[in-house]
């Protein structure tokens, strides 16, 4: 009887120690709200992203092809994208999907979303230290990493060329314009 009681005591003690260990391991340090991560981009990165005039930039392609309301135009999704036909920034303009053209504020929000998925690595790609295809921004649509939306780009196609040329510092506007066409 005494041995069984000790056995039960040991089981309870082991369970308690395991529980406390797991609980402690699950605790993270308090987030530091003052911490920032710098992202280094060329001076022309946003201008090339946004395009303008006759030039269709990166945004003209990914906002239309990736930013539909059921994909990256959905609130809360990583790489959240605003667009004329998709999600709109809530402001005094009261824009809605299908309404007024995309605003510069929305373009800048998209630009920020694109470069901040992997901020440190994106800075190194813009600096020419890595091939752009190390980034999730390309690996996901090329299905080199799991992508819920599937393989929406093919290696070397206009979309791949548009993003790669932008990340290499000289966007190919023709490729971006071709990639922005929905069949």
């Amino acid at each position, binding site marked *: 009887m005494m041995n069984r*009681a000790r056995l*039960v005591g040991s089981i309870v003690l082991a369970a308690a120690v395991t529980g406390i260990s797991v609980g402690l391991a699950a605790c993270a340090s308090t987030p530091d709200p003052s911490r920032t991560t710098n992202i280094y981009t060329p001076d022309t990165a946003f201008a090339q992203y946004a395009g303008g005039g006759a030039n269709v930039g990166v945004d003209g392609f990914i906002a239309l092809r990736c930013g*539909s*309301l*059921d994909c990256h135009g959905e609130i809360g999704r990583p790489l959240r994208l605003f667009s004329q036909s998709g999600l709109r920034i809530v402001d005094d303009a009261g824009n*809605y*999907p299908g309404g007024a053209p995309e605003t510069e504020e929305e373009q800048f929000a998209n630009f920020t979303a694109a470069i901040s998925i992997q901020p440190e690595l994106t800075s190194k790609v813009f600096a020419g230290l890595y091939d752009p295809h190390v980034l999730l921004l390309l690996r996901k649509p090329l299905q080199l990493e799991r992508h*819920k*939306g599937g393989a929406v780009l093919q290696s070397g196609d206009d979309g791949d060329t548009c993003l790669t040329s932008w990340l290499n510092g000289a966007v190919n506007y023709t490729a971006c314009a071709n990639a922005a066409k*929905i069949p």
Partner: protein
Amino acid sequence: MRTPLLRIPLLLGASIVVAAVASSCADPVHDALVSSLGPENPSIPQGEYHRAGQPCTACHGPEGPAKTQFSLAGTIFWSGGADPNAGSVIGANGATVSVVDSLGTQTQIQTNCVGNFFVEQGNQSFAFPILAAVFAGPDNQYTARMVTQIGRASSCADCHTDPINYASPGHVYLTANAPPANLVSQNSSCPVDPNLATYSVAE
């Protein structure tokens, strides 16, 4: 023979396992979505005419609770109205929903008298993304084409909720003007009223 002292931790362990397994089967997000749709309209029996304008595959999807599963479904309305914020509430009878999926398969589906259409999962599935357009009237005089592709949503109302807001273009509708009276009147033989404004519980 086991002593009561030994049974306590065994029962406790078994209870924890059962509770963990039971809780892992529930999807609170899906449950909340289904609940948000509210009760059935008492004037419209469950079936092909019910819940026009709602996201069909919230219930008719893989997580249920409906018995039938749809691969694509939705509701087409006649008019967006003069005021886009007013929404649209009269279903489009006999409209054609034309879909092309990413494999190039073309499918055409007819709406019923409240504007609902659906494709059962067992009959056909679609390779997303898909493109969609809607046609109605003589010589397809009323046409609406989606500007964007549909990436994964299997219900129109996953995105096309009413009223229009920053994240929704409103219901799918065929004309921004007043509904064509001669075509709307063809709905008179419908077993239920296709005008959602008729119902106090509508949507």
